[in-house]
């Protein structure tokens, strides 16, 4: 790839949105889709890559339905997928609190929260099935929080004035994932799903224009092998680790969707990345990842910094009320401390850039704001706060050595979630027929910004309630169900893909340079964070587009990968992932440069109003940007899916 200006071409994108009124599209589509006869399901091979919420839910459900399923993950157990770390909760339009919630309102909030950059029909369907998710999870034994009457408790979450978020202490992702993992385990035990842990997918195999299998490396033995299928699902999570420091688990990577991109699955909106406002600030150069403090803390904590830069080094308790600036309450009186993530993050960055940040000085700056619980403790008592957040306060203390019951927490924004991903149509199928993409890995439902507690909802919606229908429709439409054509793993497309993967692995091992993979990843991440993080400029992005290829070249000449390919080799795994981040980072910057507007998580400094709020440009950018791979060293091709808003009218997103 290089940085020459992208050329827009006619759209090759068919969103496949069913006709009819918004609220009836999904039901109508479900009725119209073709079915696979139960007796024939076993004849279809389905590959699911990923065992997070989206992958585990899909693999379990498809197994229950009778398909012949193989599921892959790189961790030692499917239960350890990154979804396990989600803390805060999951949204659903149950309206159990009788506070005015409805499918339409959740739909509306998600479209608006996404800054009008998502496809309406997908989002509406998400809101519709949200209610089934909670029912499903409770039936599986997910121990959601309950009230004394024995019914489910809910709370409010960033970006919403309703209490529609279900939770299981501060470990909602863990409990939802264990629910899905248990269902998956049941199918594994029954022999309907074959699980391949510690196995990394390194390529998609395409035969006759369709995705027909994958190439994987067994991370224990190092063996590289091919698996055939009639349909491949990627549920491989997000790419936040392109920034090196993020709240994502260390293993999260872009390899699966990146390699699929190179095989014809367009990548959409990579510049939509979400920065989470409540993370523990960086403490030094050794830092390996950032830790999120759940956003639910913003229900009771108040964000402030000193009004005067001179006070920033002082003990917080010594700063009188009159000298404190409660930033979010001042700027956004109606949402206050619950303003959406992008808005809150930028507010924190602004005050720190003004020199009013708090905490230790790292790299010449204090990068932190206070999140203060003193008022809530006074009002509700320390016990109530302990009951709500004990595990988070404990975690904070373990990491910082500070007690947040006695002094305010320090927080700072960090990369958290990626809205961009593989472009998919209404059926969650990519531009490569037979390749479906679910969960954080696709671009579908959150537009330019995701609301809190909506990723878990989306992952489970995709896996439990959408893919099981749309996959069947694809199989029934493309194969003779009684005798679906099988390919041999020895056939040419598989052999070619296998040798290409082996070649890349050997190439990495042969460089034998001087610098560790880690040092390259750190440097790349810092570059991308500085110039394509919370605030982006044309100048910075152009510089970044020059810097990335230079560093990438050095990587390919000077990286040191120890060991061999025929053994358990974490250095080699990591090198492959970082190599893909290097290529992907360029697409991210290209997309950020081309989108000459501010929207949601994509903030272009050139486009803000007098008060520093993001300014969208609906005339020129009301579309999803789906990038098509044009070959190595060639500029990617931009395809546009125009977004039409029938139900929710385009309006400025305001949280004042």
């Amino acid at each position, binding site marked *: 790839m290089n940085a020459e200006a992208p050329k827009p071409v006619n759209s090759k994108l068919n969103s496949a949105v069913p006709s009819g009124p918004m609220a009836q599209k999904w039901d109508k589509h479900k009725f119209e889709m073709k079915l696979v006869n139960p007796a024939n399901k076993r004849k279809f091979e389905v590959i699911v890559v990923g065992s997070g919420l989206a992958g585990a*839910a899909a693999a379990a*459900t498809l197994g*229950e339905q009778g398909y012949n399923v193989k599921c892959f993950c790189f*961790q*030692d*157990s*499917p*239960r*350890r997928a*990154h979804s*396990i*770390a989600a803390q805060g909760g999951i949204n659903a339009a149950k309206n159990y609190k009788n506070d005015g919630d409805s499918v339409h309102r959740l739909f509306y909030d998600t479209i608006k929260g996404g800054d009008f950059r998502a496809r309406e029909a997908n989002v509406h369907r998400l809101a519709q099935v949200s209610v089934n998710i909670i*029912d*499903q999870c*409770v*039936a*599986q*034994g997910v*121990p959601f*929080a*309950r009230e004394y009457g*024995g*019914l*489910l408790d809910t709370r409010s979450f960033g970006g919403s004035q309703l209490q529609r978020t279900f939770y*299981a202490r501060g*470990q909602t992702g*863990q409990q939802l994932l264990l629910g899905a*993992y*248990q*269902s998956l*385990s*049941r199918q*594994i*035990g029954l022999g309907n799903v074959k*699980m391949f*842990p510690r196995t990394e997918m390194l390529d998609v195999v395409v035969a006759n224009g369709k995705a027909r299998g994958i190439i994987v490396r067994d991370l224990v033995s190092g063996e590289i092998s091919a698996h055939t299928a009639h349909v491949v699902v990627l549920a491989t999570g997000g790419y936040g680790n392109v920034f090196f420091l993020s709240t994502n*688990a*260390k293993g999260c990577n872009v390899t699966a969707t990146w390699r699929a991109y190179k095989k014809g699955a367009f990548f959409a909106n990579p510049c939509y990345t979400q920065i989470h406002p409540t993370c523990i600030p960086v403490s*030094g150069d*050794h830092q*390996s*990842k950032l*830790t999120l403090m759940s956003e639910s803390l913003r229900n009771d904590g108040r964000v402030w910094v000193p009004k005067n830069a001179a006070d920033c080094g002082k003990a917080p308790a010594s700063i009188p009320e009159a000298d404190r600036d409660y930033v979010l309450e001042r700027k956004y009186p109606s949402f206050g401390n619950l303003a959406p993530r992008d808005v809150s993050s930028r507010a924190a960055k602004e005050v720190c850039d003004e020199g009013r940040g708090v905490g230790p000085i790292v790299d010449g700056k204090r990068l932190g704001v206070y999140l203060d619980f003193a008022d809530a403790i006074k009002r509700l008592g320390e016990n109530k706060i302990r009951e709500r957040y004990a595990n988070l306060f*404990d*975690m904070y203390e*373990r*990491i910082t050595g500070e007690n947040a019951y006695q002094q305010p927490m320090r927080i700072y924004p960090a990369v958290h979630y990626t809205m961009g991903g593989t472009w998919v149509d209404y059926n969650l199928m990519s531009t490569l027929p037979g390749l479906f993409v679910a969960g954080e890995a696709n671009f579908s439902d959150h537009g330019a910004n995701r609301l809190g507690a909506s990723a878990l909802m989306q992952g489970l919606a995709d896996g*439990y309630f959408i893919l099981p229908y749309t996959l069947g429709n694809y199989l029934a439409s493309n194969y003779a169900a009684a005798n679906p054509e099988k390919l041999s793993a020895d056939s040419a497309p598989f052999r070619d893909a296998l040798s290409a993967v082996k070649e890349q692995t050997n190439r990495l091992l042969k460089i034998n340079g*001087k*610098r*560790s993979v*880690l*040092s390259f990843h750190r440097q790349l991440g810092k570059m991308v964070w500085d110039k394509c993080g919370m605030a982006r400029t044309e100048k910075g992005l152009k510089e970044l587009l020059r810097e990335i290829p230079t560093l990438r070249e050095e990587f390919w000449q000077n990286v*040191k990968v*120890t*060991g061999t390919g025929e*053994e*358990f080799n*974490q*250095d080699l795994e990591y090198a492959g992932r970082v190599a893909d981040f290097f290529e992907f980072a360029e697409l991210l910057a290209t997309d950020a440069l081309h989108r000459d507007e501010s929207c949601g998580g994509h903030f272009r400094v050139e486009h803000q109003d007098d008060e520093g709020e993001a300014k969208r440009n609906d005339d020129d950018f009301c579309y999803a940007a789906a990038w098509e791979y044009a070959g190595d060293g060639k500029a990617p091709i931009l395809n546009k899916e125009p977004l039409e808003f029938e139900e929710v009218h385009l309006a400025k997103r305001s949280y004042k």
Partner: protein
Amino acid sequence: MNLTLTVWRQKNASDPGRFENYAAKDIIPDMSFLEMLDVVNDRLVAEGREPIAFDSDCREGICGACSCVINGVPHGGHRGTTACQLHMRHFKDGDTIVIEPWRAKAFPVIRDLVTDRSAFDRVIQAGGFVSVNTGGTPDANCLPVPKENADLAMDAAQCIGCGACVAACKNASAMLFVSAKIGHLGLLPQGAVEQERRVINMVAQMDAEGFGNCTVTGSCEAVCPKEISLNFISRMNRDYAVALLKGRQPDRK
């Protein structure tokens, strides 16, 4: 600070393995234990030596991937703390730290500090679930659950499946892990329906995997990063006894 690490190195399952010493120089107290290992590994790579293999992913104490015995204690012995959440401020300049993998017959070593814990997955596959398919489930609020039961179920459900309980036990027993799942599901009406079948099948699989018996020394509870209580073991024993008395047999595979 400067430390000495005595680390178990083992190339693969068939290598007998041995301890090797490494200097860990210029370690900062704010680093986590695994960040300290990252630093040591980075230096090993720079010298062209093979880095120490260890599992980790979330680095927030929730995924259960990290698993090393630090100075004889799984996860290093700080209450409710996994190795990834342990910080170097708990060590002193000049300390020698001994780092080993989980040691148990059911968890064979793959390399260095990395072990194969798939036995836990197979125990769950034998019965650690509620047998419901996707779809057709009743409204979530149709069955009220007393808050006390839901909270207690959550206490058990917090298990991260790291295996520290097995590593700490002199018999390498998996009773705390197994009883946590049985306790979690059995306390909820949704899971209680098949509790007898569950307990019989899970215990049979646990035995088949080669985990040892429980002699109630409590070392598992002491190292559990989620502080899961031994009471769940007593609960499981009761459920098991009831199932046996009713003549329940494990399902045949």
